[in-house]
């Protein structure tokens, strides 16, 4: 049974900060160490509950929440990346459930996940201008340039044509 103290001790090389708040273990790390940290967490935390991103204005904070069904314990992992052209290693090979969550973060925030098997837009369409959940994305209802380009489905057809 992992405890918070043991976890932070084992993973201290990959952490930049840790605290226990309201029964949840909150870990902070940075883009270079995150992959190793998640690999260390994988055996104990078997459920990929959430993965998202917060635009704090200055930079992007990527946040993921894992749950251990055996211990009934949640852990938050967060890290900050620059607002534009942020790159992160993917976690979708560790937890398949993050495959779509990463696509969503890519779609809405423009964060690139290196090594993701199928990093396409998911909620918006092919050719959508910008990333809507960034704070500087302007929502203008009267903007007449909002035309959805003709959808060719080429990305999907290519995907399906792959063996």
């Amino acid at each position, binding site marked *: 049974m992992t405890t918070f103290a043991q976890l932070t001790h084992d993973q201290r090389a990959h952490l930049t900060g840790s605290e226990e708040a*309201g029964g*949840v273990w909150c870990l902070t790390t940075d883009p270079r160490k995150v992959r190793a940290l998640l690999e260390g967490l994988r055996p104990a935390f*078997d*459920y*990929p*509950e*959430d993965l*998202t991103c*917060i*635009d*704090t204005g200055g930079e992007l904070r990527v*946040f993921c*929440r894992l749950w251990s*069904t055996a211990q*009934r314990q*949640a852990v*938050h992992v967060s890290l900050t990346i620059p607002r534009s052209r942020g790159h992160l290693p993917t976690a979708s090979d560790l*937890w*398949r*459930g*993050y*495959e*779509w*969550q990463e696509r*969503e973060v890519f779609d*809405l925030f423009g964060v690139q996940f290196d090594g993701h098997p199928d990093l396409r*837009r*998911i*909620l*918006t*369409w092919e050719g959508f201008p910008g990333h*809507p*959940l960034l*704070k500087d*994305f302007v*929502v203008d209802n009267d903007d007449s340039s909002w035309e959805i380009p003709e959808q060719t*489905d080429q990305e*999907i*057809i290519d*995907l*399906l*044509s792959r063996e």
Partner: protein
Amino acid sequence: MPLRDFRIPEFDAPEVQLPTGELAHETTIVSMGPQHPSTHGVLRLMLKLDGESVLQVVPVIGYLHRGTEKIAEKRSYAMIVPYTDRLDYISSMYMNLGYVRAVEGLLGIEAPPRARVIRTILGELQRIASHLVWLGTFGLDLGAWTAFIYCFRERELILDLFEQICGARLTYNAIRIGGIVADLPAGWEDGLRAYLTAQEQGLRDYEGLLTGNPVFRARIEGIGVISAADALNWGLSGPSLRGSGSTFDLRKDDPYECYGEVDFHVATADSGDCLGRYEVRIQEMHESLSIIRQLLPRLQEPGEVQTKVPRVLKPPAGEFYAHVEAPRGIFGVYVVSDGSANPVRVRFRSPSFANLSALNTMCAGMKLADVVAILGSIDIVLGEVDR
């Protein structure tokens, strides 16, 4: 025997590619949806078919994306509650609950005991109502038309009960930050009791129509199998996960409201197929009825249903993650505050989104008709998939 052995030596046609292997295959790519009778809304599935066999499924979502999370950044905390109704519109009550619990966590307040009891009862009623819609539409997906009407017969009674509380039948906006919208109207409990009796008969009716039906069982037994480990790995939750044998249920594992105080059993099935998911939901309805019965006496205790909450909410800077076991699985709400009246970020972790992502895994090697059955068995609502 390979077909190329039959080539006539004199006739040479190099441009003709003769098929190799036992039988020649030509695959078709079919777009199922976004307007299709059984995609439960505006889901689009790109199917790669070999005859009737499904080789690959690529779900295309986003047709109902309304940018709820973006809208939420421009609204005050209390104003967001009605938006959550529109996420999973089949179980709006639970969407309210999830969001409200996150804001309450951020504020550090808690609803009064009576409100907690009522919330739990409403939540379980909502779970049954949601499962009834699922049961009816699952039957429709399989071509069994009749169960649908029977399910809606009892769902109507639940909606009547909800209507008495908040005046709405689909998007309730009933659970508010710090409590619920109003105390129960007079006579509501009698209606609830009458409903509980009707529902028990109703459950017998549905089971009589479906559970033992050999055609129904033949259609869902062994279809869309996913193991418990795979299901967890894919982030499945709710009945879709418990149908594979996992007992992961937040009502037990991370109790909220009154779930810690009632005695219930987490319904599971070991088969991991559509039948397992079906059985779990049927059992869950029985469990929900039992939970409501246990909480009925506590409705007699008078008390406040709303704590004092300031008119303009300005939670302290910080963040809070609340998750509840919605009818479809784990509904997580992540609220980040900077101390102002509007949240910096509201994130809705929707169960259907995660459940849908495993569709391709479940559909491998199945027939076209099974895709419809599997999609029905994971019970998605596009409102929360697309948000």
